[in-house]
């Protein structure tokens, strides 16, 4: 049996989701059409709105539809400390650990010297500008404990050195190859309190 054009289009579109192959895409499509039309309409509306309106926070680069995200706008955050992480899930993990009250800068990836992913792709110019313009005392580098995370941290250190800001790197308790989002809250708390100053 072949699907009608609209159903076929839906199945093919669902396959853009991670972990979704032809079989599960078909199951999802039929579920939505047979059992949950209302859910389908809601999903389509939510997807459309998010895809059209969500962009990056102008100061930390995290995803948001506002000019600035909640964390950056919050009067409770300590604006003298800035923590640099690779992904939004890292922000989530650190927030969960409850050990940090400063602001963030989210790279949305890491440098990858052999793939040509460079400082422009991570918008490091925005990071540099923030350090130059805001009164930031300390930049905490919380990139992953991977080789790429190390390469990225080193680049940022070299870039920010002339600004004379204190730069620290979280290290303790983060195993080699460790990605922040997979590390539990207490380990992450230790990693923060045990951060080392880089020179």
């Amino acid at each position, binding site marked *: 049996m072949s699907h009608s054009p609209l159903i076929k289009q839906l199945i093919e579109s669902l396959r853009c989701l*991670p*972990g979704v192959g032809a079989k599960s895409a078909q199951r999802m499509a039929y579920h939505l059409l047979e059992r949950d039309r209302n859910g389908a309409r809601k999903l389509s509306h939510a997807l459309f709105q998010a895809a059209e309106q969500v962009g990056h926070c102008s100061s930390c680069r995290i995803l948001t539809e506002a000019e600035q995200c909640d964390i950056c706008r919050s009067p409770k955050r300590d604006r003298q400390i800035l923590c640099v992480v690779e992904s939004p899930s890292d922000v989530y993990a650190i927030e969960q650990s409850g050990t940090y009250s400063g602001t963030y800068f989210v790279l949305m990836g890491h*440098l990858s*010297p*052999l*793939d*040509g992913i*460079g*400082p422009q792709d991570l918008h490091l110019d925005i990071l540099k500008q923030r350090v130059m313009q805001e009164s930031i005392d300390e930049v905490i580098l919380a990139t992953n404990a*991977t*080789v*790429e995370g*190390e*390469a990225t941290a*080193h*680049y940022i*250190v*070299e870039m920010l050195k002339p600004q004379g800001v204190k730069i620290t790197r979280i290290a303790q308790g983060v*195993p*080699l*190859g*460790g990605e922040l989002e997979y590390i539990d809250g207490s380990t992450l708390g230790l990693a923060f309190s045990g951060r080392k100053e880089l*020179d």
Partner: protein
Amino acid sequence: MNTVPDRIKLDYKTAVVLHHYNYQDNSLIVNFFVQELGKLSAVARGVKNSKKGRYALLQPFQKLTISLSGKGDLLTLTQVEALLQADSEKWNLKGKSLYCAYYINELLLNLLPAHTDCSAIFNLYHEVLKLLSSHIDDSDQDNFHYEIPLRLFELKLLEFLGYSLNLTVDQSSGEKVSADRQYYYQLDVGPSLQQNIQAQALLISGQTLLNMAQSRFNDQKTLHESKQLLKWAISQHLNKPLKSRELFKQLYANK
């Protein structure tokens, strides 16, 4: 004559990770430098969700024993573990050393043959990364610690690949290169006292050529001139500019 290659099964080979990239949702494609076999690529399935730390093992510069099977250009990784090694053998690549090591990996990714015994260059690779690891203080003003291992590796890699440079014989006169003369170096032939205006040539001192012939890169002039010659020679064998070099330039542009 093209024949379909037989199924390959390789067990417990010593290897280093040159590069990896994401493949499908949870897998990686890993480019390995296998001691006895050169560059081989394999899919490592499901490693991104693995709690066994296999993802960490498959990062660049990890020394491993691996088993591979399959056929064609893309094999499947069937076993991987960290190579047991003494602390003194462990690499500690940080800062500039790490960027230099990335450059070396990119050279190998582009130039290393497959299914060829590459033990000689594999051993040199280990020596060079060890040298780079021994120096992790970026504030040091001199560049010897980074430049010497890099030049040595480039020179030996060209030799290994069969692209040895003629460093000792003046190609127009047949005389030995003399330390106190300046030579016009043409890539395919070598040094000459006479300039051939039709051919592209690099002006280089006889002393530098003789130092290179003995793998001696101990002074700034030799380092500087040999860098130009080796960069030119290597570029002849690359299809595209090296990305790690671009990033390195951006990083140290003001230094």
